[in-house]
């Protein structure tokens, strides 16, 4: 396995993030997860907006591991599933950094006047939209 990039590597080189990558980081910010847990977490949170297939999920996990955004944690039985030992993943400080930078980027995007206008316009029709 490749050694992860040194922590002082520039997170901006990785932006913008693929939606799936951001979702994984967000899930892991809430604590360690195993693969299955990631899927259910993301599905719940994004309401099916992000498409998860085994291939793209695990490939993204592999690349994130290679780049040092996440690491594998010890395997232990998952209490919410069967008793099999599962691989757990944990976010690294670098991963947190990247997630934060992405959030900053998204906020900046939403603050733009044009985007704000779009959202206001939409809210007029659908007050439920926040």
């Amino acid at each position, binding site marked *: 396995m*490749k050694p992860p990039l040194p922590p002082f590597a520039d997170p901006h080189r*990785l932006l913008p993030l*693929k*939606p799936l990558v951001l979702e994984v980081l967000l899930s892991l910010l809430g604590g360690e997860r195993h693969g299955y847990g990631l899927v259910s977490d993301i599905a719940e949170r994004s309401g099916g907006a992000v*498409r998860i297939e085994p*291939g793209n999920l*695990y*490939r993204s996990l592999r690349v994130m591991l290679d780049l040092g955004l996440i690491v594998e944690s010890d395997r232990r039985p998952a209490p919410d599933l069967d008793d099999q030992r599962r691989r757990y993943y944990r976010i690294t400080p670098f991963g947190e950094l990247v997630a934060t930078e992405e959030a900053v980027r998204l906020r900046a995007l939403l603050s733009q006047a044009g985007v704000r206008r779009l959202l206001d316009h939409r809210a007029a029709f659908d007050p439920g939209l926040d």
Partner: protein
Amino acid sequence: MRPEDDPMAPTPAGPAPGRLARSYRLLLHLYPAPFRRRFGDDMTELFADRCSEARRQRGRAGLVLACWRALGDLLGQAASERWVSHTALRGARSPRLVRPATGASFMSTVAQDVRYALRGLRNQPAFTAVAGLTLTLGIGANTTIFSLVEAALLRPLPYATPERLVRIRSVDLREGKSDSANISGPDFLDLARASRSLTAAGVHGWTGGTATLTAGAGGGEPEQVPAARVSSGIFTALGTQPALGRLFGPDEDRPGPPDVVVISNGLWQRRFAADPRIVGRTLQVNGTTATVVGVLPTDFRFPERDTLRSAHQPDVLRPVDFDPKASSRSGRYLHALGRLRQGVSLRTAEAELQAIASHLARQYPDDSERGVRLAGLADDLVGGARPVLVLLLGAVSCVLLIACANIANLLLARGTARRSELAVRAALGAARGRLLRLLLTESLVLALAGSALGVALAVVAIRLLAAWGQGQLPHAAGAGLDGVVLSYSLALALGTGLAFGLASAHQSAQPELGDDLRRGTSGGGVAPRAGAARRVLVVAEVALSLVLLIGAGLLIESFWRLQRVDPGFSPERVVAFELSLPVARYPEGSENRFYERLYQRAAALPGVEAVGGANMLPLSGDYSCDGIQIDDHPALPGKIPCAEARSVSMGYFRTLRIPLAAGRLFDTRDADGSAPVALINRAMARRFWPGENPLGRTFTYEGREQGNRRRIVGVVADLRHFGLDRDAEPEFYTPQPQQPSYHTMTVVVRAAADPGRLLPALRRTVAELDPLVPLFRPRTLSETIASDVAAPRLRTAILAAFAALALLLAMVGIYGVLSFTVGQRTREIGIRKALGASRRDLLRLLLSQTMAPALVGIALGLATAALATRALKGLLFGVAPTDPMLFTVAPALLAAAALLASYLPTRRAAAIEPRVALQSE
């Protein structure tokens, strides 16, 4: 220690092995092994879970959709992962987490790639045209040949469980006899009765014979239709069911009243307008009344080579006409087949039948040394075509390989030119896997488009071949584009697309992309690896072309020799036809009077030089070997030799201009009642009276008149009866008046001028003698000779065409390689010239690109050809598979072609002005 490094850690149990999950697990092998080991279990489990969820929520449709998505995801991600894991070792610099521009799913990116590929092809019309044309020709030719192969060799026989059907051959175990298959009636009956390993067996006989048909009693137009004889066992063995009425029963396997016939479906439709009351109607067949008992189904195929696949079938089937008690055991003119009992192997059955045959031989000892051999019916009927078709398929595949090499070369050249474009794409964020997919899509689109046109070309070619190669490809009648053939074409298209796509994509996407952006496009110029790949392709092309050239050369030489063979008679200006006298009106002995009168009248016609008749002509495909006993050298029982028996008229030898070697020909002395005489050919004289004078000697023979002793009055030259490529066999001739004639005779007439013009007069002459005896199968002997060489001619022509195509493609390939090299290295050449390089140095530089690999290719090709041409042995005539002259001429020809192809680019290089070249970058 991490869990995965700990050998003692138990592996987690896999997911529940449903069938889908197992398939998914299998497909995971597309991923590289490390990835699979790490994530495989989790992925499978996730997949299984998604499937069950999809099924729960949206039923079957949802499941299918989920599987479809999973498949797309798997294919795409696996490709990317494989590509990435390649370059991951090199320290890839471009980040792979960048989102693609549209964020779309796998399937829509495929659509994107296809559109891009089409645009790219449109923008490069020259490349597209050349590559497209090459593919069209290559895949079109392959599809055509494969459709012939499929029709002849791959389709099962049109009978019930055809793999249990066997051909029963009664063979002559004495050495030097041709592998005949004919069996006699009584022999067959004894075999069939005693055998336990066959559940059904029957005999059939048809040598293109016909019958005169008149409907009803004494009314209606007489029509000549193909007719054959079958025993009831044939229908049982083949599993044929009648469309109407019934088929023959075992009690009808004998001559004599009541006369019954079964007619073909075609005849029923054509002549009787599909009358449902046809069963029970009577017909006049050859003058005798016969009752129609049944109609065959439309898909019935008579089990002979010529009729197996064609629409031309016997219209009238009559029962066999041998009398089990009275017929001679040596009258061998029937073909037998049988059905093996369930569980009995061919070898076992053969051994059993051989034992029965040996027992029969002991019982009837003056028979020759007979044995029984079994062969699968499929093998017997179509096996003969196998060598030629396999040869053609091999040759055309070589052509396709050469075409692929050419296209790969073209793509490599193009790929090198596109490296900067690809570098830009990669810098903008395209993943390597995506690039690979892009290049592959281009190749596949090109391949599929080229093959679509190729298939269209094949349709035309198949139709042409069917019209052209009428008699030469009987097995391939009915060749067309069915599912199997189209699948083959599609597989070829995908295979070739992937082959040259991967070859060029590998090259194009390999190098350090950043370097390419910094350097100029033709800086250090040719990537050394791409250049080497192109030279390897040239070697391969040249080698394959040489093999094809040598193969074609062998066939051409062989055919040329065959053409020059002297058939032993002079076929020019001779017309031949058959006459068949109805048994009912010409009892034994009366036929000769008819023929005598016919010969006289025909000879008197204007424009006729000579007239003759025989029971069979050379190259007719028929033969009749009778056992003989030489009085001076009696043979032991069981070792009785046989010689070909012919009954001929007085004028026969003169009509065919067969020279006399000794003694005299038949004349008016040899009439009915005079001393029985015979003529023999040189082969017979050599075989049985070596070094002696055979004139005046006597021999007896079996056959139509047993025990009749004949005295030899003359020796004639040899005829090639069995084929131009087969030596003459011993033959003897008896005068037609001196023995009961055959009801069917072939009459030959030599014309002073055009023989075809005589036909109407001849028909009239026959009709004057008897209006109910029609004349059929009129032909000129020149046509007969031509059709004997027609099959070798066709395959030689086809192979020569392929070899020429291969040579052309190889030349195009060589030209392309050198042309591109010159273009890429213009600067370098200019520099060299400026530094004082001589013409010779330059030539050496350039020719090393093409002639060096060409010479290697020639060496390789010679070695391969030396091995491969051994397979052609059966098709060659008068020429050895390693003919030294050809093995010298062909390489020289190819080397000359390579030089020629290198000429233009070399001239261009020589014309490069150093000043201009240096400025051009």
